[in-house]
């Protein structure tokens, strides 16, 4: 996952990476600390690149202008994300360079990129040949050596400053098991000082288990990273994909859950959520199912629930018992529930639902189950 710029900067700043002084603003009537004097940059905090080109980065010279900028950006939709916060930071001067380290997943190697010209048009620099790169084995020593070699084309004293910045930044890339660290612009000044003007840090979700500082950050900022915070706390994936979605999904398997969302979209309907509950990990405990039913019940526009369990190993009779327990534990879920079940123990599952008296519709065929789940929305009777 990608850290928001504000979090990446505050995190790396605690390790001594120089970043512009800044604060996170969630309202326009923000009071700034005295040290944070203008002019400022106002930067939307969304997990994508290209924020500048999308109008998400503005300059403000006065406090009135700053509040106007914030008022214009907060709550706005930029690149499919709603802006909930902006980082307000001091403008920084210097020669604008570019540095990134990224993992090439196909090769299992690192790519180090360097340019003595940074800025939003880094792609254009690449075309002109100003952006130079090296592919190296994925270890810290080789990455630093590569950055140093690439910097040879840059004149002193900037060269020495860039190498020093690269050493510190590449060390951070390894400390946090990142897959991408991009600094653009990297401000270099004649006195040998430097500042990470913008900072993009993509971390490896699978490494969180041994990254306590990243775990702490995600828990502390759970409202900014709801999906990952939920995964840390509950051990599985649940993502609200559309707060106005009409269909709640209780599904296992990431690929199949994504495909279900797509199949609903193809039929002109919006899923409320993505869900990979991992039925193999339930082991007789209905807690995950109860949580998911509760979260779906909280969806303001949910009118139908579709369960889809393709059980390779798990016995459907046991799954059915857990489903009944969970549904009974969440009476606030009052919409029709359709269950598409397939695997061993289908007949026992039917018997469990029948004896529980729950008005759950069970269907072994996926396309027919989707149609059933859509009937409360279309009003059709089948």
């Amino acid at each position, binding site marked *: *996952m*990608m850290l928001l710029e504000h979090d990446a900067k505050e995190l790396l700043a605690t390790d001594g990476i120089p970043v512009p002084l800044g604060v996170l603003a969630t309202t326009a009537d923000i009071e700034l600390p005295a040290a944070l004097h203008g002019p400022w940059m106002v930067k939307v905090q*969304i*997990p*994508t*690149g*290209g924020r500048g080109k999308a109008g998400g980065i503005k300059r403000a010279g006065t406090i009135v202008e700053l509040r106007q900028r914030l008022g214009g950006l907060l709550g706005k939709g930029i*690149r*499919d*994300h709603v802006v909930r916060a902006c980082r307000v930071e001091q403008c920084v001067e210097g020669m604008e360079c570019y540095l990134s380290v990224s*993992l090439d*997943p*196909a*090769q*299992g190697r690192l790519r180090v990129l360097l340019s003595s010209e940074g800025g939003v048009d880094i792609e254009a620099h690449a075309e002109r040949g100003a952006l130079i790169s090296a592919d190296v*084995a*994925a270890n810290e020593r080789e990455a630093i050596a590569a950055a140093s070699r690439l910097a040879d084309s840059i004149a002193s004293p900037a060269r020495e400053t860039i190498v020093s910045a690269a050493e510190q930044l590449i060390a951070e890339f390894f400390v946090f*098991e990142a*897959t*991408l660290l991009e600094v653009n612009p990297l401000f270099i000044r004649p006195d040998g000082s430097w500042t990470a003007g913008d900072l993009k840090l*993509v971390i*490896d*979700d*699978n*490494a969180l*288990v*041994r990254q306590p500082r990243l775990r702490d950050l995600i828990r502390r900022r759970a409202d900014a990273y709801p*999906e*990952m915070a939920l995964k840390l706390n509950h051990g599985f*994936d649940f*993502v609200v*994909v559309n707060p106005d979605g009409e269909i709640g999904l209780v599904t*296992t*398997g*990431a*690929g*199949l*859950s*994504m*495909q279900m*969302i*797509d*199949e609903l*979209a*193809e039929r002109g309907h919006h*899923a409320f959520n*993505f869900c*990979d509950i991992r039925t193999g990990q339930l082991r007789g405990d209905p807690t995950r199912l109860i949580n998911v039913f509760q979260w779906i019940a909280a969806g303001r526009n949910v009118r139908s629930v579709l369960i889809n369990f*393709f*059980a*390779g*190993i798990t016995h459907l009779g046991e799954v059915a018992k857990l489903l009944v327990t969970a549904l009974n534990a969440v009476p606030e879920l009052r919409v029709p529930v359709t269950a598409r079940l*397939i*695997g*061993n123990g289908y007949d026992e599952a039917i018997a469990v639902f029948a004896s529980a008296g729950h008005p759950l519709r069970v269907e072994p065929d*996926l*396309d027919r189950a989707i149609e059933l789940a859509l009937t409360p929305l279309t009003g059709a009777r089948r």
Partner: protein
Amino acid sequence: MTVPSVVHVPFVTPDVATIVQGMTGRTGRRHARLMQAYGTLIVGGVSPKSDGDEVDGLPVFKTCIEAVAATGAVASVAMVPPLSVLDAIREAVTAGIKLVVTIAEGMPVRDAVAALEIVRAAGVRWIGPSTPGLAIPGKLKLGFLPDVSLAPGPLGIMAKSGTLSYEVCHRLVGRELGQSLWVGVGGDPVKGTRFADVLPFMLTDPSTHGIVVIGEIGGSEEEELAVAMRAQNCNKPVYALIAGRTVREGITMGHAGAMIQGDVGTIASKTRALTEAGAHVFTRIRDLIEAVAAEVGKGEQACS
């Protein structure tokens, strides 16, 4: 974009002698039994805690080296927790294992990079991480692909997603279209075997008449496959389903590799690359099933 240079050892033969690393754990014990019942030649297991133990009549050794020396095993299925996968691979490779399947989900990328270096240097085929495994239906499975979706037939299957491939193959089997070889490559960004690595085996395998690709958003594996299809003059029909067209940039969807970053990993890029390379790309499962049934199904009938 370059296709990674991975050694081309054959994927697997039906009678490959196989050990299970993590044999005494809950998962290892259960799946050793299920794999054996399916026809896989399981010759033993490994558990560092073993003291001459047996599981279901199979010997359990302390180390892979002992297991390989005693049984002549060539393949291993590692059923160990995610943070132990790297060590398991290192141990298997050191012992001379030539094919290692690691099923655990959640292996850190840094570990996967290190594992990749090890298997490449040793010329070992690694399937995983985060995969239900692979199968030659009717003969062998290494992992836990569900029997209900497996049947011998004309299709080569390569899939990032376990459950979506179960669904697609189950429906194809319902149309009497089984599989010649099924490889779950897994949903992680860094992995032992990628789509493009699987292609040459399916192209040269005479029992494969069509290829089904189960892809998803994130990474560039589908694009790499398209490059490989052109380079290898792909003369078999390729049918692809790519999940996640409604996913927003920057949000991870369950699989560690399923995230769009800028222009990398989008549906548009994957669909364009595969279509231009001659693949048929679908958005609905049903449409893929109908196309495969109409084209490959017909060809099979003519052959038999």
